[in-house]
């Protein structure tokens, strides 16, 4: 029997040889000075950066670093060398991929995903910490049959595990019609084993972004991936030496490998697990990586998992279109007295789905009635905002929007599987009861499908929304006694803590002051805790002694002081999963804000990814700050520096999202009409000279403000 370590060393030799060839070919074809750029990342070649502490910019840099990569591959029979050899294999794989991207900006032509962007890393921050994505699997295959491949992928998907595919399993998925893509959390990375470099790069960037691990800190990367990234590998028989070499790297990072290959394979507890019955891969793997899936048992005829949140139901696949923008629709959570409702009673008032024509637009309203001794009216909007996630998780059901501008599409497949109106009720019931079990003793759902009922319910709901909005508008930082901290992200970004106030929601956009309050009352020992604000130091900048004390304690001594309303003086830190990044633009004395979805350039000469890499991981970087979209229109946004009037540039899409509220704020603060029109966007310019001309032409108020620095 061949020794495991020898197989790994042999596999590394193969990968290094391939990398050497690829490098030589790239040098010959495009020359040493040709740039090496992975798209949409500020972390260069992340694996080289992580392990070698080298920022690779050109083919020449790559070539110069290669001897060092080779030195990581030593042959003494010790696990230390095996682990290092695994990393050498990953770096060699990255060399092969980097050469491809140096020659062509889009080497996979959409057929495979290839490189993953920084924005994609950041997007996963929140679902990972909330446990909505309990882990990642890398499937290296082909599976024994197409059917088994599809079953495995779908099995993981239904458990909300994020799936990366490498090799023949991708074609199998295609043949079986399994949808792939980042939004549905099944990513066809590439056909060859060296494309694992992209997955490792993804993981290493997570460590840098969320964990503030610094390049070259090998111990830091190992610790982060071992303790915080719940990933694992499923490798199908036959596992070649080169795959085993990659497996060594994965195991070094703490990611167990499960395989059905028994030949020359050596089991290692919790690390290399031989499971001859590949149909048991899922359960075996989850146990190996200590992943416990929270089961929400819901009585519906389609699959239910967070993995389906990103699924899109297109017009021609659509059975029904429940469209709140055209007909009367709404969703509402309302509190009742316990005796008024019967638990788990789901009532459909009006015709069911089969009574509507295929493809038709219909109205639909649903009301979740909840009761419980500790239930408060303030929790209603908190629950209600989660309905989008709850409904969206059903396979073949797409939910967008909220309140009375919601839209639900039910696919033909879901309908054919038996999905009916009542099942929306089942989903709401199960999700509310399980997520809020400590306050909701009883829950009943009423669903309306007749136009006249919908009109009436919608009017009723609108009155409730209005009242809630008034309450929200009245909620200011001054009007409340306490703020909340949120350390949800510490499972991922151990040094970061958010302070959530009525006028400043969490930077991820997912935790408002009301959410934090509800979270604290639901579980006082959970992620959100009360922060008193009694000992004010500087109300204008937003500094309180009590807040500082909390921040110091919650950040494990990492932070001494934060301001809540300044970007220049001790700004609040970020975990890395912020919705927007704001950075100062020195020439205009203003700031540029970019949201995560925008991949283009900004007048700072930096993309979102590059700006984002300036902060994150709980590090304070004056001049850069991550925040939620809604914070832009807050009266407290950059109050220390003069407020939203500092904003000089935003992507058009973001501007559209926030303009109504931002304009209202500017009117109130500065008496300005239509302020958002003064803010430049990518249609105006991406360079700073033109930006200055534009600001001068528009007489942007920033030009009259004090210098920022």
């Amino acid at each position, binding site marked *: 029997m061949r020794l495991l370590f020898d197989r790994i060393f042999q596999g590394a030799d193969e990968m290094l040889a391939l990398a050497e060839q690829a490098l030589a070919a790239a040098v010959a074809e495009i020359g040493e000075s040709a740039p090496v750029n992975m798209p949409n990342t500020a972390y260069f070649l992340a694996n080289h950066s992580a392990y070698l502490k080298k920022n690779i910019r050109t083919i020449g840099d790559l070539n110069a670093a290669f001897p060092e990569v080779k030195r990581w591959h030593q042959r003494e029979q010790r696990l*230390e060398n095996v682990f290092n050899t695994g990393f050498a294999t990953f770096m060699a794989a990255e060399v092969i991929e980097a050469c491809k991207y140096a020659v062509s900006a889009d080497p996979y032509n959409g057929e495979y995903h290839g490189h993953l962007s920084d924005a994609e890393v950041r997007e996963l921050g929140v679902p990972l910490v909330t446990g909505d994505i309990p882990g990642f699997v890398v499937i290296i295959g082909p599976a024994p049959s197409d059917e088994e491949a599809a079953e495995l992928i779908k099995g993981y998907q239904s458990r909300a595990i994020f799936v990366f595919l490498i090799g023949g399993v991708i074609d199998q998925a295609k043949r079986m019609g399994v949808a792939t893509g980042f939004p549905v959390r099944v990513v066809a990375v590439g056909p060859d084993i060296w494309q694992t470099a992209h997955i490792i790069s993804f993981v290493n960037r997570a460590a840098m972004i969320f964990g503030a691990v610094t390049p070259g800190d090998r111990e830091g990367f190992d610790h982060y991936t071992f303790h915080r990234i719940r990933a694992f590998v499923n490798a199908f028989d036959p596992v070649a030496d080169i795959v085993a070499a990659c497996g060594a790297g994965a195991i070094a990072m703490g990611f167990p490998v499960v395989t059905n290959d028994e030949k020359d394979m050596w089991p290692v*507890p919790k690390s290399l697990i031989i499971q001859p019955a590949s149909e048991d891969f899922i359960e075996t793997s989850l146990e190996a990586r200590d992943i416990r899936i929270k089961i929400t048992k819901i009585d519906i005829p389609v699959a239910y998992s967070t993995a389906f949140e990103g699924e899109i139901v297109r017009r021609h696949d659509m059975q029904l279109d429940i469209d709140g923008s055209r007909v009367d629709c709404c969703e509402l959570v309302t509190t009742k007295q316990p005796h008024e409702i019967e638990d788990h009673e789901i009532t459909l008032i009006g015709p069911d789905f089969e009574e509507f024509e295929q493809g038709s637009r219909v109205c639909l309203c649903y009301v979740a009635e909840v009761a419980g001794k500790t239930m408060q009216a303030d929790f209603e909007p908190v629950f209600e905002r989660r309905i989008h996630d709850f409904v969206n998780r059903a396979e073949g059901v797409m939910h967008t929007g909220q309140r009375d501008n919601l839209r639900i599409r039910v696919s033909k497949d879901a309908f054919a599987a038996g999905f009916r109106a009542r099942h929306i009720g089942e989903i709401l019931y199960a999700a509310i009861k399980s997520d809020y079990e400590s306050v909701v003793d009883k829950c009943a759902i009423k669903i309306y499908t007749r136009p006249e009922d919908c009109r009436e319910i919608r009017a009723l709901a609108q009155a409730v929304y209005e009242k809630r909005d008034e309450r929200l508008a009245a909620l200011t930082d001054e009007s409340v006694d306490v703020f909340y901290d949120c350390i949800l992200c510490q499972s991922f970004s151990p040094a970061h803590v958010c302070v959530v106030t009525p006028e400043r929601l969490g930077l991820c956009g997912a935790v408002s002051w009301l959410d934090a309050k509800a979270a604290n009352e639901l579980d006082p020992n959970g992620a959100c805790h009360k922060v008193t604000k009694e000992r004010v130091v500087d109300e204008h900048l937003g500094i309180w002694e009590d807040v500082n004390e909390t921040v110091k304690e919650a950040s494990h001594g990492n932070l001494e002081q934060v301001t809540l309303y300044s970007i220049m003086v001790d700004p609040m830190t970020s975990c890395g999963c912020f919705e927007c990044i704001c950075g100062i633009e020195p020439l205009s004395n203003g700031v540029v804000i970019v949201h995560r979805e925008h991949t283009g350039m900004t007048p700072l000469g930096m993309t979102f990814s590059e700006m984002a890499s300036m902060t994150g991981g709980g590090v304070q970087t004056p001049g850069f700050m991550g925040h939620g979209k809604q914070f832009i229109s807050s009266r407290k946004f950059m109050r220390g520096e003069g407020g939203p009037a500092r904003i000089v540039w935003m992507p058009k899409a973001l501007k559209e999202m926030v303009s109504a509220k931002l304009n209202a704020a500017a009117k109130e603060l500065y008496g300005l009409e239509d302020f958002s029109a003064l803010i430049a966007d990518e249609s105006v310019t991406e360079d700073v000279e033109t930006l200055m001309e534009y600001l001068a032409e528009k007489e942007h108020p920033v030009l009259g403000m004090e210098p920022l620095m």
Partner: protein
Amino acid sequence: MADTPAMYEQHRSKEEILSGFTTVEQLEADTAKLRELACAACAETWADRSAGQTPHCRFGEEGICCRICSMGPCRVTKKAARGICGADEHAIAGRHYLRMAAAGSAAHSDHAREIAYVLRQASPTGSFPIRDEEKLLSLAAEWGIPAAGRDIYDVAHEVAEAGLNEFGKPFGTQRFLSRATRERQALWEKEGLAPRAIDREVSASLHMTHMGNTAEPEPLVRQSLRVGLADGYGGSMISTFFSDILFGTPTARASEANLGVLEAEMVNLIVHGHDPVFSEMVVLAAEEKEMADHAKSLGAKGINVVGLCCTANEVAMRHGVRMAGNFLQQENVILTGAAEAVCVDVQCIFPALGPLAGCFHTKFITSSPVARIPGSIYMPFEPDTALEQARAIVKLAVENFVNRDPAKVFIPSHKQPAAVGYPTEQIIRELDGVTNSHVDERGSYMPAIDSIKAGVLRGAVAMVGCNNPKVRPDYSHIEIMKTLIRSDILIVATGCAAQAAAKAGLLSKDAKYMCGAGLRRVCELVGIPPVLHMGACVDISRMMLLVNEIANDWGVDVTRLPIVGCAPEWMSEKAVAIANYVVATGIDTYLGIEPQVKGSAEMMRLITEGTRKITGAGYIINTDPHALVQAMIDGIEQKRALLGI
């Protein structure tokens, strides 16, 4: 909601953690400071006496001085190659060697006999109830003693009697031999090594070495193996199992080690020796509220019971009682000036403690007729009134607190966290934690075996033995252990070796940062320290179970396993008995102190190479710890190569 952040370990830097371990130099600096104190108190320590004894008598050191009859003493020199009776250097060294082994076996076994008598008297209302019924019942089943429908104490008493019969039974061999692999049992039978009654093997050894008996070295060496086995699979194993039945099988728990566990503001009561029977009672008595109240009324903050030597190992792994130190630390404890009482049982107690205690306020209490020492208060232990006696001792210590002279107090601050209590049962439990229920069986050593086969772990070493002033104390233990764990070799340790590890921090889970990547990963996944504390020196019987069970799970005989034993600082006769049963079990034993047979080339050959032909194992001797550990690593790699792994 997802995992709460609290479950995540905060990342501390490796450098920060590594700088927190105690070095040998720091241990030595503490001892040096305490020796200054000793000077001030006009007391002496082992270091002074060792200087006075150096150089040692060469004839004694080489084992060629015969004092067996009154015609002598005779010694072998170039001019006089034989003693008066004609015994040559091989006979003299061989007889002396066997007598050491027999004495060691007698010591462990007599300790076992004491415990067997206590078990014979166990009662639900007395000082000694049964704490591990499951173990009692499984032993009853193993020995064919009926238990169904019987009172558990009737069963206990019959098991105790069966155990006592192992000492003097006229026919048959030791019952526990059946716990060895089939190959081992057959080999022992074939080679005539299977031990008969324990007392008979000790007597036979003394008889063989009597004037005018065996003069041929090989039979003396063979009898050494046999009397050793009577200890390892007789006395020691009985002691271990009966102690577990009476006091509970140890489980993993947290403790601390080194002089820093003494408390400046508390009554410090030290239990020292080997037999846990009495110390168990002292620990219980000290936990009583009345005692703590009494201490407080006299100005102390409470009562701090700590252990020394193997008594420390026993109470640490059953109660988490903290460990003040090992063999050569015993005087240091009194030198701190903060020891209100030192209560001892048997073995490895310096007679020097009597006069030393007299220089301080320390009360020195002996409790066994086996260990009577001048300068002590003698309170012979009686099982019937044990708890009452223990209370009296605690009271004595408490009331002595007021006599402490603050001017004489110096407690070195060094101490280290230690995870202790890894008998075989606990090791299996830990290994179960890394099995995968979809592919693995639970309750076996397969996770460890798989890790060794794959190369993640290179092998395992049993670190045992004492301290010996002939080498730098603790240095050999600690240097060897650090090198082994850096080389991905897992360590199980007992006795003073385990305590040396504890003082240096090697029993802490943070010690994974000193390991090679393979052992470190095993420590992280299993959640264990790289050095597993298996108990007192009598618990080397647990190590024998461990290797035999691993061999059974692996499907090869013990001698083929990449597992070796090491006693780098051994000194006692018990160590000679142990080394013999370890070699008889088929495990190579690496010694850092030369056995006293060097004057006989034939004996040296027999103990290093000769036994190999009989049991498959022998001694490898090297007084340089670095050379010794390299030999162990090479030996392990050689065994791996022979297995094709």
